């Protein structure tokens, strides 16, 4: 499972600034294709920031800027002007599901329709996406109900379906289970497992057991104590990182000595 896999996202010497505050310093790692990569680390170390570089979500923050390089299939993410194409390729699932105030069906069909796909294409994409998000059996008889009527876990799978509908290649997930109960969490983890065959998944999690369960590779990040920038401490196959960490700080974190 952890066999060699080409890099989908090549991050090299990436630094990130919120105005004058440097939030990330000199991060380099290769995120392998069709694998699950977890980002772990204590609060404030820049996991969300790093994730949001990958789909340029930081464009919404004024004065935020990235230095260095992030390449997606050779496309320079930090400089591209084809932002919409990038975000279609690199989907994102947020901590809170935030369903659109529409029906279950329309939530998933929303983007395909706006992208101008034909009716038949939209219908197919929606059904495939909901099925792939392991939600079809639960909602197939109530597709016209408001999305807000779903449970939290179902809503989160609906946002995954929404993201799958535009046929991304990479899926970014920022603590997708932190608002869910253990059963709903398990379902999402199963889902991640299955999706990893087709998609490159990067998941931020606070839960080390979760990283150990779902991720093929894990990156441990830490905030510098003086200048408060986030840095990458160690990046390795998950079993290696948890069983034989090379950096004492990684070991400290995973054995619960700090963070």
């Amino acid at each position, binding site marked *: 499972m952890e066999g060699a896999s080409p890099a989908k996202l090549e991050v090299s010497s990436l630094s990130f600034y919120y105005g004058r505050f440097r939030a990330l310093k000199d991060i380099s790692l290769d995120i392998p294709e069709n694998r699950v990569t977890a980002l772990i680390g204590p609060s404030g170390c820049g996991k969300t920031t790093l994730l949001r570089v990958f789909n340029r*979500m930081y464009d919404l923050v004024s004065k935020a800027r990235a230095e260095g390089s992030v390449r997606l299939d050779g496309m320079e993410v930090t400089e591209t002007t084809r932002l*919409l*194409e990038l*975000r*279609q*390729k690199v*989907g994102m699932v947020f901590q809170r599901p935030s369903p659109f*105030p529409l029906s279950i069906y329309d939530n998933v069909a*929303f*983007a395909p329709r706006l992208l101008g796909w034909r009716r038949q294409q939209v219908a197919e994409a929606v059904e495939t996406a909901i099925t792939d998000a392991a939600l079809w059996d639960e909602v197939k008889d109530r597709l016209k109900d408001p999305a807000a009527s779903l449970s939290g876990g179902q809503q989160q799978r609906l946002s995954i379906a929404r993201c799958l509908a535009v046929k991304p290649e990479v899926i970014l997930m920022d603590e997708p289970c932190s608002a869910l109960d253990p059963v709903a969490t398990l379902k999402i983890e199963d889902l991640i497992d299955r999706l990893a065959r087709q998609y490159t998944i990067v998941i931020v999690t606070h839960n080390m057991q979760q990283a150990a369960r779902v991720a093929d590779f894990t990156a441990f990040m830490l905030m510098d104590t003086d200048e408060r920038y986030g840095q990458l401490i160690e990046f390795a196959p998950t079993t290696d990182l948890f069983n034989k960490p090379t950096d004492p700080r990684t070991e400290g974190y995973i054995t619960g000595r700090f963070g």
Partner: protein
Amino acid sequence: MNRNLYRQVSNGLARVFVYGTALAALIPLGLVLAYTVSKGLPSVENVDFFINSFRPIGIPGGGVAHALAGTVIMVGLASLLAVPVGILSGVYLVEYGRGRWGDLIRLASDVLVGAPSIAIGLFAYALLVAPFHHFSGISAAVALAVLMLPVVIRTTEGAIELIPGSLREAGLALGLARWRVALQLIVPAAAPGIVTGALLAVARAAGETAPLLFTAFGNQILNLDPSKPMAALPLLVFNYARQPYPQAQQQAWGAALVLVVLVLITNLTSRFVFRRQIALASKL
């Protein structure tokens, strides 16, 4: 013991004060309503009042149909102008209006809210009446639209700001263009709040007299052509109430009642719609 007594007394006083101020606010409203209803009711009990237009003093059966039609047409035209422009400006302010342009639009709309409506009427007169040498419903509709615009802009802005940013992010993360997310996701989600703003603006415009004085001017016959002078309910009240004849004054009360009821319904509807917006937004 003593302390308890003190607490009871101060509690009581606070309660009296709260009820007193509430009463002070309600009394004028109640009086205006009661007085208008009691004075206007005899007029509106007669269906002729809504079907017929002006009749000379002494001839029975005069009505306000021409004024009602004029008000509806002019406020309708004004809404057609002000509501789309206002919504787009409000959207612009939230989505792109961080810089100078946004501040300028905000300043302009705040100034417009406070501008005396007679001045706005004068502006419409100079722009659309004087050059053409005749009064018109259109010039009045433009004046009313200028009055409505800032209300629509600012309530749209407020309604959109109620929508959590996470909804916008979710839309953008799907690779949708910013303006599409704004117009096709955020605006529909904020629709009830935006409708509230439009209704408040309509209520404001319907009750205005000053901007109509030298634009619509008034008309004694039923006229549905907005390029000509038009009657309007507030104008009719203004004109009839100043006449010495009881018949005219009676009709003025009737027209005032119709106007008050229209504005009240619009206002109450807007409040109802706004509650729905709050309930909806809290679920997002």
